[in-house]
């Protein structure tokens, strides 16, 4: 729990989420710790609930868990993830709107190419079953994805690794956006 509190604060400090938006979770056996709906990621003390990861076994605490608890469940079911972080960083959101769902954002910088390889853009409304399906499918083969017009989902074997992915997606999208813009100006 302390780990999620620590990384929730880092996410906000790094500008990877703002206000009440974004959510974080960590898998513990058949359960996950997940931030509550309406909570601020930099103030998660007392704002993390424990719910089942089984999509077929809804929990009473789902009502106050993040509205995207079903997306987290679908990702845990489809991947080997042990932690999931979701942010709304600016360049990732902007880049997602320049691509169509199903397309891939291919990073330009060496580190992002190494860490991420490529970033799928997926479609789905906030907390929707469509988003849960699409995010889970895309995260089978990738560690970070961007939901069109919405934000980033990052998975990891640890919360730290998921944080690296979350910030790498934003870094990759920032560089890509700047490079693509510079190319257009130079042409």
């Amino acid at each position: 729990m302390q780990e999620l509190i620590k990384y929730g604060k880092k996410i906000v400090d790094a500008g990877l989420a703002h206000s009440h938006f974004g959510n974080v979770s960590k898998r513990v056996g058949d359960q996950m710790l997940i931030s509550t709906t309406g909570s601020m990621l930099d103030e998660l003390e007392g704002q993390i609930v424990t719910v089942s990861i089984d999509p077929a076994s809804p929990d009473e605490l789902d009502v106050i868990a993040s509205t995207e608890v079903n997306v987290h469940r679908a990702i845990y079911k489809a991947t080997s993830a042990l932690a999931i972080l979701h942010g709304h960083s600016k360049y990732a959101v902007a880049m997602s709107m320049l691509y169509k769902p199903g397309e891939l954002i291919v990073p330009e910088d060496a580190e992002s190419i190494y860490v991420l390889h490529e970033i799928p853009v997926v479609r789905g409304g906030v907390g929707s079953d469509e988003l849960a399906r699409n995010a889970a499918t895309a995260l089978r083969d990738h560690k970070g994805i961007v939901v069109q017009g919405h934000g980033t989902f990052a998975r990891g074997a640890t919360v730290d690794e998921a944080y690296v992915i979350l910030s790498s997606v934003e870094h990759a999208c920032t560089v890509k956006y700047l490079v693509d813009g510079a190319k257009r100006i130079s042409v």
Partner: protein
Amino acid sequence: MKAVYGWKNKILRIDLSKGEVDSFAPEASLLRGYIGGRGLGAKIVYNAGQVDAFSPANLLVFAAGPLTGTTTPASGRVSLSTKSPLTGTIFDSNCGGSFGPELKKAGYDALIIAGKSQERVFIEIEDDKVDIRPAEKLWGKNVKETTSLLKNKGSVACIGRAGEKQVLLAAIMSDAVHAFGRGGVGAVMGSKNLKAVVVKGTGHVDIFDRAEFLKQKKLISRLLIASPTISKGLSVFGTPFLMKITSWMRILPVANFRKVEPDFNLSPFFAKSIVEQWSPQRRACYSCPIACKREDKEGNELPEYETIGLMSANIQNPDYSAVVEANRLCNDYGLDTISVAGVLGCYSEIRNKGISPAELLRFTRMIGEKEGMGEQLGWGAKLFSASECSPEKSIQVKGLELPAYDPRGVKGLGFSYATSNRGGCHTRAYLVAPEILRKPKAIDPYTLAGKAGHTKIFQDRFAAVDSLVVCKFAFFGVGEEEYANVLSAVTGVDYTSEDLMLVGERIWNVERVYNLREGFSKDDDTLPERFFEKKVDGRVIDREEFLKTRDEYYRMRGWTENGVPTERALKRLGI
């Protein structure tokens, strides 16, 4: 205004003392300004003047709203207003089932029952045909049997033996399992020698703009489904989903609100365990897609959150089956489960012992029968504790026992208990929504800062909602705007959300003036002392902060520093 859409423009009046029945068309401004349900009832009860709760002059006003009997989602409720014999305040209680829609289809916005019959009677209404009939054969029977004997005549609202014996915790039960639960309203009915009201309607409710109505109805349905509180909570588990949440938040009262850490494993009381053990079936009120009620495989009702919360940890009973049985006993005797559990919590603290499962059932029967210790317990926690020289052990506000949320951990809700016009009640402002369930937006439950404003707004909001009469649970997903739009479509009168809030404020002030007339004062707008003095889970309500919040609340309402509405405030509201 010719109120022919939505409203029926007709109120039925029955004087049991004289055996007379008549009806009248209400002033258009009454319907426009108070809408129906709780608002209409409050105004009628206020206008009747000062009465003793058990006097024949006390009224029972069953009031539907303009949406009742339409297929507007969650609009099947009906309100009852009277003076409470338990609290001495003006009182309203509303419930689901089909009584409200039948009353509307029979052609009435409201039914006013005055007087006291010399004989034991029940009232039978079928459209314009209204009969006062002998009830000697029904007297002495409990709710299920009475309902069973009358239900072929229409929707039944009746009392059980508790109401007949004028137990101060007696409820009126509609369609056997829906309760006009709180405040001893069943005792008022019993005092009138009235066993039941049965109503059947064959008419319909005219709608001003059907196309717009259908459009708004579709929108409301979509918003209800989209609400996580409804789609992940109420519709899946019913209200017991709250058990795990209040337990997690450490606000579930334990041992008569002395702590929040139970001495036994609470998981059998959690909704998921209940689903696994009892396979509950969903049950819905008229025209409600939420379907929050639950019954077992045999069709017997299962308890709601408040009943489970207060009949388990708060009285130190570890047996869920006993709660199920006690809930059924309460429904059958016609007793308010919250107040029964509240007075038993008080008893257990005074006797310094928990209530065993067997004692829970035995005491419930004794309260219903007004026998032995049950007679004193049936006075409610305030009078019972006073009779035991332990008034500090009654957890109530204005005589009404508190629901299952410790105010030290939900301070806005606690403040709303203190300022409630009907006493310790969570539904007046329903701050359960923002403070516990984080809807429509999460607000910090651990502080009183800003809660004067939240309380006022939510009190006004739900006074209007209770007048439509719409279920509060719909407001987890839908706002005043949508219901103002559907109200306009149904009635042909243009309502905005601001209009609804103004109606709510008007109702709140009428109720306040009634209570002041009865002798209530600022001193009654408070909480039991232990919430200011004893910490649970490191939390307490700071008295100074509470008093400042109360001052701020009075100012926001346009009341004097003593909590009295000013002439100017009343004039602004048209009172």
